[in-house]
């Protein structure tokens, strides 16, 4: 029982990182109706930029700033090339376009960083916290706290500001939004920057916990974010968070009870079952309808 609870605690902590990646995916998808396969690789570029500064002796704040800036630049590049330039065209073209740019980003990073792994600074040096029989790793607690704060911020931004209203308007009806004078191009750019900042933070927290970075982080982050988004329901912000947490808890429980090799298998099994039985995800029936319209012509 203690194991089970400990697994849930660890799962929620790990899952909060997935939740951030899912949140970035769902923002881009929800507003722009585009699947950005290069989202994970953009974050990977960001943490490698951070590492570049770290290797040259920069302080933690500089590394954080560099990571966020690198992610934003990479993601804006993807957004302008794959989505802005082909935005009026078909969704499948944009997906494939974002895939080839992923290949490009990965190769560019490997050219600059040819080794298999590189170090990343630790974000916190606190001792683990013990509450009765349950352990809380300090890195995880930091991650969880950051995620909770960020979510509150995102919620305020989306539901309490002019930019947030514009986001929701574009998400629900881009044509009507243009009639209101909402500039779609700028909203698209704003979403790309916002998603990149969220992803960059996720990258910082995850790389800071592992204290290393690898080029395959891009693939990993795209997978985790995509699964978190799909489990929760595409385009749903609370859905992405629930999806990320569910994914984290499921992974840890499966690893504990079945073994490490079942971690990813369980995640994909969960995803496949969800898609077949409940394609709208945990929260998000209405999204299915709209997504259908967006993808009708591929």
């Amino acid at each position: 029982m203690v194991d089970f609870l400990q697994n849930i605690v660890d799962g929620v902590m790990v899952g909060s990182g997935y939740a951030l990646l899912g949140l970035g995916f769902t923002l881009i998808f929800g507003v722009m109706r585009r699947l950005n396969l290069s989202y994970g690789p953009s974050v990977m570029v960001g943490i490698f930029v951070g590492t570049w500064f770290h290797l040259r002796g920069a302080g933690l704040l500089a590394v954080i700033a560099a990571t966020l800036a690198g992610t934003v630049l990479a993601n804006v590049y993807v957004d302008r090339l794959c989505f802005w330039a082909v935005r009026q065209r078909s969704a499948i073209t944009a997906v494939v376009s974002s895939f080839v740019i992923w290949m490009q980003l990965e190769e560019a990073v490997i050219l600059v960083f040819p080794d298999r792994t590189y170090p990343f600074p630790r974000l916190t040096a606190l001792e683990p916290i013990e509450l009765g029989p349950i352990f809380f790793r300090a890195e995880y607690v930091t991650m969880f706290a950051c995620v909770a704060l960020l979510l509150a911020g995102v919620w305020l931004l989306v539901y309490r500001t002019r930019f947030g209203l514009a986001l929701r308007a574009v998400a629900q009806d881009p044509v009507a939004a243009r009639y209101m004078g909402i500039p779609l191009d700028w909203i698209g750019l704003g979403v790309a920057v916002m998603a990149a900042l969220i992803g960059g933070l996720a990258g910082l927290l995850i790389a800071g916990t592992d204290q290393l970075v690898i080029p395959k982080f891009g693939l990993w982050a795209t997978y985790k974010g995509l699964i978190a988004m799909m489990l929760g329901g595409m385009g749903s912000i609370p859905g992405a968070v629930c999806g990320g947490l569910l994914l984290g808890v499921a992974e840890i429980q499966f690893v504990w009870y079945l073994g490490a090799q079942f971690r990813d298998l369980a995640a994909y099994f969960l995803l496949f079952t969800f898609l077949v039985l409940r394609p709208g995800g945990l929260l998000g029936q209405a999204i299915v309808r709209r997504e259908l319209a967006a993808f009708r012509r591929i």
Partner: protein
Amino acid sequence: MLVIENIVTAYGKIEALRGVSMEAQEGRITCLLGPNGAGKTTLMYTVAGILHARRGSVRLQGQELVGKPSSEIVRRGLALVPENRLTFPEVSVRENLIAGAYLRLTRDKAGVAEDLERQLVRFPRLRERINQDAGTLSGGEQQMLAVARALMARPRILLMDEPSLGLAPLVVEEIFRTIHELNAEGVTVLLVEQNAHMALQIAHHFYLLEQGRITFSGVPGALQEDEVIHRAYLGGSGASSH
């Protein structure tokens, strides 16, 4: 007030508008009639900057609109109530209305609140539903929301694309009464309609658009009115054999 001159808009090689010229005069209701596929909605999209004209000009109080982005066109005082209403279904009625004033949301909070109150006085039913999602409203209520949302932009001219589409006759009458009232308050209206009978009751001036061209213009009550109505409903010039 709004002068459209020789507008050509094409989808690929197919010209949907083949040189359309018309005018909406200040303080009046101008009505554009025409059968399905005549290019009415294309014209509205072109004027609002959603589609780009290949040739021609659209001037609002002397200022050229062709080539301007839609946000700029809204800023110049042109608001459009789109066909099929296009409200934001999962956003509350209040926020739908506020979105209508998007361009001055940060600069003019007091003005936006004032306008919001004005629309709620005009459409009491929206006040009852103020916190509901727009998607839960009936068709007629959504049309009122779309009109109110367009008015939130404080337009000099209001373009309405088929406001009666898919609504029950009683609701249609209510919508047309609203248009009439708005006009009486001084709003210039350009109304696109297929429901020619209703539209001609409130219009000061009308045009007939057929196959991408203006084929008739006049004032209601003119001799050819029956033929115009016939052609607006049925399309083609089959009516000319009468």
